[in-house]
């Protein structure tokens, strides 16, 4: 979200910065005027709240690597969000010469031996630093998942100063502890479509028989990798034994009552990562269930009497597999998910025309979901 915000904030600066500088947001303290500098600068500082815990130094409670090299001061920080990790770089030119930095020449060296290049979405432009100027920018790592393999990291920024040639500023980091969420991409919002057979009914609701199927629609928003909330819409169609209901005699034209249910509730969403692509999800929801007649138009009162709503509890346990991950602009991913699991609906009290219909219903669901 912060990176999207940065993109929005940078839009007013279009006249000051080329488009590719927006994708590679580098803030020049002296060139970009007024509120644009202010808001971008506040944005960069706000990134400090997203520092990677697993790479923090206990002496400073930060990931900072402060360097004085090539007649420059430089600071490096590791930050990340749910889909990418970045290195935040600040460079201050202490020399009396104008220097330039080519972001395309930046390298990452992991574990002292593996070299990786940044995962730019669009080719960034070169930047210039006049004497006394500073620049701030963030550079995307090619893969967040690769952080699981890394114990130490060097960031090498090449500075060109014309006649003096090139000089490399190196920032160094060391992992202090392993934190799973910093080594994996995950979604912050999911939309899920589910369907499957009804398996079992217990209690008086058995009187209605089995529905022909169950379907569900849900959306979850995650403020934490493991915890979120959302809504659940769950339905069951055409209970096979609805004709047993006492209300049948209220129908005209010989039509039979055919019960259907909808449940709409607010749910908590728990997500446990079994691996980078496989999760166990548990989604308990509280809401209201409505039983209604799918052929209401043929009843004497247009189905009003045969409709009843009651408090209900529903919960789903699913195993999800992210089978496809589509990279999106601004360093986001669109994930596609397949899943399977069980659903249980509990209705403590529900009646239609004196017929008690409380009880438990169970079903199996197959899920297709999308998230980003």
């Amino acid at each position, binding site marked *: 979200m912060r990176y999207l915000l940065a993109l929005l904030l940078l839009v007013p600066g279009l006249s000051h910065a080329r488009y590719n500088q927006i994708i590679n947001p580098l803030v020049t303290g002296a060139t970009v005027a007024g509120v644009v500098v202010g808001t971008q600068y506040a944005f960069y500082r706000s990134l400090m709240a997203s520092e990677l815990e697993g790479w923090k130094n206990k002496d400073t409670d930060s990931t900072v690597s402060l360097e004085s090299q090539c007649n420059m001061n430089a*600071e490096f920080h590791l930050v990340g969000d749910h889909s990418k990790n970045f290195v935040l770089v600040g460079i201050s030119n202490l020399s009396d010469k104008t220097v330039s930095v080519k972001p395309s020449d930046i390298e990452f060296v992991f574990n002292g031996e593996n070299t990786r290049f940044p995962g730019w979405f669009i080719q960034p432009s070169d930047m210039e630093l006049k004497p006394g100027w500073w620049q701030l920018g963030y550079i995307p790592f090619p893969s967040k998942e690769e952080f699981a393999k890394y114990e130490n990291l060097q960031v090498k920024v090449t500075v060109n100063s014309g006649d003096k040639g090139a000089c490399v500023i190196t920032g160094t980091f060391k992992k202090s502890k392993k934190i799973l969420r910093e080594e994996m991409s995950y979604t912050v919002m999911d939309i899920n479509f589910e369907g499957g057979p009804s398996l079992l009914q217990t209690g008086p609701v058995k009187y209605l028989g089995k529905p022909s199927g169950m379907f569900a629609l849900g959306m979850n928003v995650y403020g934490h990798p493991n915890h979120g909330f959302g809504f659940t819409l769950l339905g069951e169609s055409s209970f096979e034994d609805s004709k047993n209901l006492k209300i049948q005699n209220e129908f005209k034209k010989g039509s039979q009552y055919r019960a259907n249910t909808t449940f709409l509730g607010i749910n908590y969403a728990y997500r446990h990562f079994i691996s980078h692509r496989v999760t166990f999800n548990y989604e308990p929801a509280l809401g209201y269930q409505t039983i209604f007649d799918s052929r209401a138009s043929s009843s004497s009162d247009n189905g009003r009497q045969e409709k009843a709503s009651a408090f209900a509890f529903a919960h789903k346990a699913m195993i999800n597999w992210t089978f496809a991950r589509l990279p999106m602009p601004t360093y986001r991913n669109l994930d596609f998910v397949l899943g399977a699991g069980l659903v249980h609906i509990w209705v403590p009290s529900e009646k239609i025309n004196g017929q008690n219909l409380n009880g438990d219903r169970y079903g199996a669901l197959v899920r297709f979901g999308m998230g980003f």
Partner: protein
Amino acid sequence: MKKLILLFLVTSCSVSWVPTIRSPYSLTTHNGFIVTNIYTNPTDLEHKENQIGIKYDIIVKNIAKIERSLDLNGATMAFRETTLPMTCQSYQKEVTFKVQPDQTFRIQCEGVLDRKKNLGDTKMILSIPLEKSFGTFTYVVRSEDFQ
């Protein structure tokens, strides 16, 4: 419906917010120390009943090749004719301590202003002792902060 529109308008107005950059970004060298202020919250002030709390957070690296001794007593914030004290300590809660060559450490400072005395828009100079010198930083408070 009218109430909803009114509620929307009131809510829209009440959440409008313009960030104030209180202290410009600084990555400089003071007396053989590299100092960055990037961890200082750029916008937030702490509003107490009769006081405004100012917090300043810097990360420092000793780039001299010798051990250095720091005494953080004597930090101040100055504006116009007034100089007020600030209290500073390391992240380990030490006020006096030694730092080794290439050691990186964190200093966190706090100062207060009297909220009843509206200074108007004021640019203060915060001075934090770094051995024989001071790291200096500008910090802006605005007239609205005293309301």
